[in-house]
């Protein structure tokens, strides 16, 4: 383990002023990312997972947005950099790919041109060299006949292919971190698997750290080293992959896990859904954000729980129930075969 983490977010808070009040999209989030590590950020819409990473890259242009906290990348606080400095980092240090490949590429420019644009922005090489590199990258991401296809327009590619192009573009300058915001949500299930496999192959090859944002636990099951679960702008659980899948500590995480259909288990009577709706970010409850929907709520939940390491060794959660209570509840309330016990 290298000494200093590559990216360290400290108590990040992002809020938006609206006609109806202040929306707290991110409410005190802290985490770190080490070199070569893959972090999965899981949560439903409105949990703040995208806003967190967009804020890290300072991509939120809304004049009504307010930011607090620190984001340290290689020791520098990104929140304090000026425009020119942050632009130097975008694409070259931290690169991002987005959810919808259909609309994320500019429709009027050839894909080669778009990749070259990024390369030429950060590196002083000739246009021909950039062009050659673009072809190389397209080949790396598995696009056949790259030398021809480099001159095609985005609408000549299918959704999965476009996402590959996006990945090629993002990795063109060998960034330290690749942020993938729901990279497979808009794609077919079979293509999803391909894209995830591609991301794994590339990250192994280049040693890139990856932040994988998704609402789908299945996506992070294979790829992530560590996972953090977000809800209503807060992190409510974080730990290693094993921790989260085999010893989940937060009722919300149970809900997420319980709602996965599994082929290797007997069919449950009904797919479990978490009843209720996420809270309005305008009016967060005083105590635990998940409280109103939590079937295990008790008196103490009116107090906002802190993210604490109760199990030990880096597995944190924000729930007032203590570890023993939780294990007991888990056994009786959740379909016992969904969770394997760790002895």
């Amino acid at each position: 383990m290298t000494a200093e983490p590559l990216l360290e977010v400290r108590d990040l808070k992002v809020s938006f002023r609206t006609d109806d009040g202040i929306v707290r999209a991110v409410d005190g989030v802290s985490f770190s990312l080490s070199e070569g590590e893959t972090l999965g950020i899981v949560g439903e819409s409105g949990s703040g997972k995208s806003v967190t990473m967009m804020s890290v890259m300072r991509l939120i242009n809304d004049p009504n947005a307010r930011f607090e906290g620190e984001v340290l990348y290689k020791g520098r606080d990104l929140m304090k950099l000026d425009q020119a400095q942050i632009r130097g980092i975008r694409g070259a240090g931290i690169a991002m790919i987005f959810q919808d490949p259909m609309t994320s590429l500019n429709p009027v420019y050839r894909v080669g041109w778009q990749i070259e644009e990024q390369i030429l922005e950060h590196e002083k090489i000739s246009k021909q060299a950039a062009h050659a590199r673009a072809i190389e990258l397209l080949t790396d991401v598995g696009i056949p006949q790259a030398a021809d296809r480099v001159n095609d327009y985005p609408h000549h590619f299918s959704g999965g292919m476009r996402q590959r192009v996006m990945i090629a573009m993002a990795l063109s300058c060998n960034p330290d971190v690749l942020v993938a915001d729901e990279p497979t949500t808009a794609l077919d299930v079979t293509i999803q698997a391909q894209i995830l496999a591609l991301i794994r192959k590339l990250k192994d090859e280049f040693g890139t750290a990856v932040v994988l944002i998704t609402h789908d636990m299945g996506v992070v099951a294979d790829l992530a080293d560590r996972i953090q679960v977000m809800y209503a702008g807060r992190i409510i659980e974080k730990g290693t992959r094993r921790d989260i899948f085999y010893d989940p500590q937060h009722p919300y995480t149970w809900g997420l896990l319980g709602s996965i259909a599994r082929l290797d288990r007997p069919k449950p009577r009904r797919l479990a859904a978490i009843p209720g709706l996420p809270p309005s970010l305008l009016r967060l409850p005083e105590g635990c954000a998940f409280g109103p929907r939590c079937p295990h709520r008790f008196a103490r939940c009116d107090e906002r729980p802190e993210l604490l390491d109760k199990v030990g060794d880096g597995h944190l959660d924000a729930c007032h129930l203590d570890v023993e209570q939780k294990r007991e509840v888990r056994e009786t309330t959740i379909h016992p075969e969904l969770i394997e016990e760790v002895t």
Partner: protein
Amino acid sequence: MLTFIIRRLLWTVLVMFVITVVVFVIFFKTPGVDPARALAGRSPNPQTLAEIRAQLGLGRPFPVEYAIMMKKIFITRDLVSYSNQGTRVIQEIFAATPATMSLVFGAAVLWVVMAIAVGIAAALLRGTIFDPLIMVVALIGVSAPVFWVGQIVNMISQGSLHSTVLFSWVPPLGYTPFLQSPGLWFRGLVLPWITLSILYIGFYGRVLRANLLEVQNEDYVRTARAKGISERRVLMRHTLRTSMITFVSLFGLDFAALVAGGALVTEVVFGIHGVGFLFFESFQSLDLPTIMAITIYGAFFIVLINAAVDIAYAWLDPRIRPT
């Protein structure tokens, strides 16, 4: 691409044909109107009426009437204006075209340049006091009737302030052909150019600004920023490029309409004897052949420019190009 162009042009020919038929119907088949009498202008005598009927074959079957008229307009080009001492209509129109072209082209150059400047300025200055200020001025430009602005401009430049240094260079109302005197041609067109473009600068400036701001929220602009590109480059290369697509198609429509005689009021107010002015004169004297010919000429122009715009659109937006 070639088949696309050919198909588009064929379609254009068809539409032109339909237009000629419609115009013909309007003028010759409106219920309650006797075409010969209408064509003859004011107080016709029976001899003239009979002559008209014979020359144009009125009273014969509809397709024949139509064919004769079309022949006179396009092939023999000897369509004559009865209310205007037998002047040849088509030649008159050709003679008036340079004036209209000078006016419209000059105004178009002015308005395109200014509109782009205004649109970009407003988008860049968003959040400051200048953005709404520019937009209000643009809005006023759009809301003022062109002919009224022209009257006011004349009022100021030809009237009380004419002798001052501000406006002493303004020649009397009217058009001077370029070959006759470039200087006078220019000076006589400056104020009409400005008057005509005010409306369009306002409109296109707003359209462009709205487009730019809308496109700023598009996913591919977000991607461009995530690549680390400077805001200026994002604006020029990404947002502007795609915004220009709408701009160009709208521009085509307006430009065509102007060339086709839409600059009518400006020509009348400033005394520029272009096609629009001719049109105005012709319906003051009920000179039907001229009115009809100009309408057809105008419609043709629009259809032609529409086709050109479609082709330009396909060039600008690769998604439209058939592969």
